[in-house]
């Protein structure tokens, strides 16, 4: 049975449309016009226990709104939602006991008190057995390096320190599902890496289901086996990361560097049987662009190596950003479940 199941889940907000200028503002006092914003518009989700899911989309696509419905913060406008058999906003107490939530933008801890005091308070709130609590805290301290942070008030932590503490706090009660909304935003590479390792380990050891929204597509590449993409409130892709990369027609680039200069007409003639975009960066360096699957890559490389004195070959893999952009440009690739 899926751990999260949603059918035509929607959240609409009524937004007041402001008229421009002072005159508009005065008019607005008397008569207001409203518009309905369909932040999330009829999405279907089915998540299995133990999955790590990357939930991506551009700003304002409805990612956070979805997370807020799944965590019980927002009441859906329409559709059905069950998380571990519970309706989050109706069964709030029981539901939130089994989830952990981290918002990258805002801490879940109490601003004014020291980290360890916040942890101790959480132990009481979630009624975590003392031994269990001590063990887990010890482990988190080691893995996330929290020892030096425990006595600092939350408001004095740097972003990276705060993120590590927030992550530890969200897992103290060993939740079945971990929601991470932009967990690596604004963090440096080293902290990002330690946070990813921690998430991966938690998933592996505890079987924690992870739902992750991010703008950093390397988070997705390193953690997620499945990607769900949302745009303007609707799902536009739901499937494997690799399938997504293969399905979308992305230009790949092959950079060729030669020992001797080559003139353009010779290059054109040599490659006339291939459907390539050919650009000379300078007489020694050429950029060949092509669609994945349209060109027999090994054959092309063989030809280049055989006929030219090649100093270097470099293949650029498509960035996920480009895949995302292309899906948006082309609309649904037909896989949105």
């Amino acid at each position: 049975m899926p751990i999260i199941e949603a059918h035509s889940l929607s959240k609409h907000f009524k937004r007041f449309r402001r008229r421009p200028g002072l005159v508009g503002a005065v008019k607005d006092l008397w008569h207001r016009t409203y518009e309905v914003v369909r932040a999330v518009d009829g999405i279907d989700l089915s998540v299995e226990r133990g999955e790590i899911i990357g939930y991506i989309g551009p700003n304002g696509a409805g990612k956070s709104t979805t997370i807020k419905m799944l965590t019980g913060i927002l009441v859906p406008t329409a559709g059905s939602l069950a998380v571990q058999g519970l309706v989050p906003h109706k069964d709030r107490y029981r539901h939130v006991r089994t989830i952990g939530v981290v918002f990258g933008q805002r801490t879940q801890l109490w601003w004014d008190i020291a980290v360890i005091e916040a942890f101790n308070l959480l132990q009481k709130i979630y009624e975590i057995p003392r031994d269990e609590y001590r063990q887990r805290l010890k482990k988190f301290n080691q893995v996330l390096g929290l020892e030096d942070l425990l006595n600092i008030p939350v408001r004095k932590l740097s972003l990276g320190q705060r993120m590590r503490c927030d992550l530890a706090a969200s897992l103290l009660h060993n939740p079945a599902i971990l929601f991470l909304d932009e967990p690596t935003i604004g963090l440096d590479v080293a902290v990002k890496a330690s946070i990813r390792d921690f998430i991966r380990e938690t998933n592996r050891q505890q079987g924690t289901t992870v739902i992750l929204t991010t703008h950093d597509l390397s988070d997705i590449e390193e953690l997620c086996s499945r990607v769900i993409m949302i745009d303007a409130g609707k799902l536009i892709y739901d499937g494997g990361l690799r399938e997504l990369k293969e399905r979308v027609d992305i230009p790949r680039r092959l950079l060729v560097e030669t020992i001797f200069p080559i003139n353009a007409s010779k290059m054109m003639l040599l490659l006339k049987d291939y459907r390539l975009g050919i650009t000379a960066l300078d007489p020694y360096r050429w950029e060949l662009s092509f669609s994945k699957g349209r060109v027999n890559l090994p054959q092309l490389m063989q030809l280049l190596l055989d006929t030219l004195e090649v100093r270097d070959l470099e293949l650029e893999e498509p960035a996920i950003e480009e895949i995302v952009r292309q899906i948006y440009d082309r609309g649904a690739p037909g896989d949105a479940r």
Partner: protein
Amino acid sequence: MKRFFFYSQLYGAYLANTVKSRMAYRADFWVGFTANLMIQLIGVLFITSLTARIPQIRGWGRHEILFIFGIAQAVFGLFNVLFTNLFELSGRYILEGGFDRVLLRPLGSYFQVVTERIDLEDLPGVLLGLLMAGYAAGKLHLDPTPGRVALVALALANGCAIYAAVFTALAGLTFWFRDRGSIASVVLMLEGFARYPATIFGKWLQSVLTWVVPFAFAAFYPSAWLLRKPGSGTMVVLAPLAALAAALVAAAVWRRGVRRYESAGS
């Protein structure tokens, strides 16, 4: 019962954290405490010099007015100590999205909002108010019998509940109207009136303070009864009912409001 014990224990833990975090900034705390003490002292100075010049207003003697003022100050002070965070509800919690965090914990949302900040700096108001009432009672030859002391304690609790309910309902309106508590500040003005014998005002203001925003039940009616004013028996019986009615309205506003909560865009 088990739930009650659980929440009491948590309240203690939150309170301990508040004290710790305030004590981490001891200078801040004492500045706040002293400023508060000054404000309350000015109030005392004002009312004592006023009553010194006008020994009687509409049948209320100088010490009777002081007694009512003292009780009212203590009640409002207690409300401020325990429920100060209600004034943050509109801005920090509802409009800025701090309520998200509240909804993610397996605890009552109202309990959390109220408990996350306890304002010990407002304690001087309670102490000064009680001192003033005690002084006035002495002048009026009202001995502190156990019955009277118990009634004052009940009046404090009941009055505190009335203020809490009214300001909860008002702050809760932010769930509907994106307003940073300007209605609450209008009603806050009414609290000033509630420190005087309600009968010195015109009929309409007296009715508003009794039946609409029932602040008169917080200090005035219980005090009038202690001062043995004729006709105050009925009103003192109504006081807990006023608190209950206000609490029911507040609870309804809260429950519906939370369902409407829209969080803040990220």
